[in-house]
């Protein structure tokens, strides 16, 4: 099951899956920030959006809902701003350098650095500990949890601290938030990756719930392994 949204892309109405929408939005954001400093900014971006709409219609072929697969296929046909640069003309290269000088090379990555979020995918109570663990690059949120549990026993400070943190730290809701939580730079390619990961994890979870209804605890354990694998590798290197 998936939520759907109604959007207007380049003058065409579309019904699009929630995850597909997120993917598309991030893609268009990188396009917009890439051409922001260019002369024909509005024209180029609206042309690209209109073409995306046409590609969606071709891919839909009579079906009614734009899925994330369709979004991915169309982005593949259209290409990312990095790929346009390789095919553009000489003038574009100098223009490219100019914009890089202006925005110090950040035009395709619209968010850098870590942000503190609560992690809803790996939570015991409110996801505060796993969020903190992700923020400080601690491999296993268990250590942070132990610290808080010790805090609970040594007085009420631990408990109050947890409740206050729970209230003030925002939950990581979107794929972008989750990347920012782990400190990865967001661009079109890795946001695609995280969404794919999520689909796999979700499929795994469904299988597990289907096969053994009683043991709920196994599912989150598996999830943690999948999500932390890239982090751990980063530490070894």
């Amino acid at each position: 099951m998936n939520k759907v949204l109604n959007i207007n892309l380049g003058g065409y109405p579309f019904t699009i899956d929630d995850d597909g929408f997120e993917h598309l939005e991030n893609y268009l954001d990188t396009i917009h920030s890439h051409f922001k400093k260019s002369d024909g900014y509005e024209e180029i971006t609206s042309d690209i959006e209109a073409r995306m709409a046409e590609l969606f219609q071709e891919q839909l072929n009579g079906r009614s809902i734009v899925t994330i697969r369709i979004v991915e296929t169309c982005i593949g046909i259209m290409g990312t701003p990095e790929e346009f640069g390789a095919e553009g003309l000489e003038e574009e290269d100098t223009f490219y350098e100019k914009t890089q000088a202006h925005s110090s090379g950040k035009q395709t990555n619209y968010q850098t650095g870590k942000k503190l979020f609560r992690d809803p995918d790996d939570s015991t109570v409110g996801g505060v500990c796993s969020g903190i663990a992700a923020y400080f690059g601690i491999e296993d949120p268990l250590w942070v949890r132990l610290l808080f549990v010790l805090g609970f026993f040594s007085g009420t400070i631990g408990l109050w601290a947890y409740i206050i943190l729970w209230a003030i730290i925002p939950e990581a809701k979107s794929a972008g938030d989750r990347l920012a939580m782990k400190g990865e730079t967001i661009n079109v390619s890795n946001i695609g990756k995280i969404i794919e990961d999520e689909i796999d994890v979700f499929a795994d979870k469904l299988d597990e719930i289907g096969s053994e209804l009683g043991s709920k605890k196994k599912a989150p354990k598996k999830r943690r392994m999948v999500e932390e694998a890239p982090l751990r590798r980063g530490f070894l290197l």
Partner: protein
Amino acid sequence: MKLENTMAQMRKGVLELCIISIIAEGEIYPSEIIKKLRSSELIVKEGTLYPLLTRLKNAGLLDYTWKESTQGPPRKYYQATSQGRSFLQGLMSTWEQLQHAVNQSTKNLTNNE
């Protein structure tokens, strides 16, 4: 020295020539340009075309008019300006010179094979 880079450089130069000459044949809208270019594999990613068209338009080589479409919102139809046509002639003569030069330079190589 990467082969891919050199190939991309070569493609860059002729892409502009091809786009202007396709548009000079008669007014056309971008998706049709893509269809024509796709068969020649000159454009790998479609997104490349749009900034290029806008730049050629801003340089006064192309112009466009909005036309109603039966299938959706109005479409932009591009046409070459007189400046664009003379620009194209310049490019064509350079291209012919280049073609001649390349044929001359590689003649012995292809004969030997």
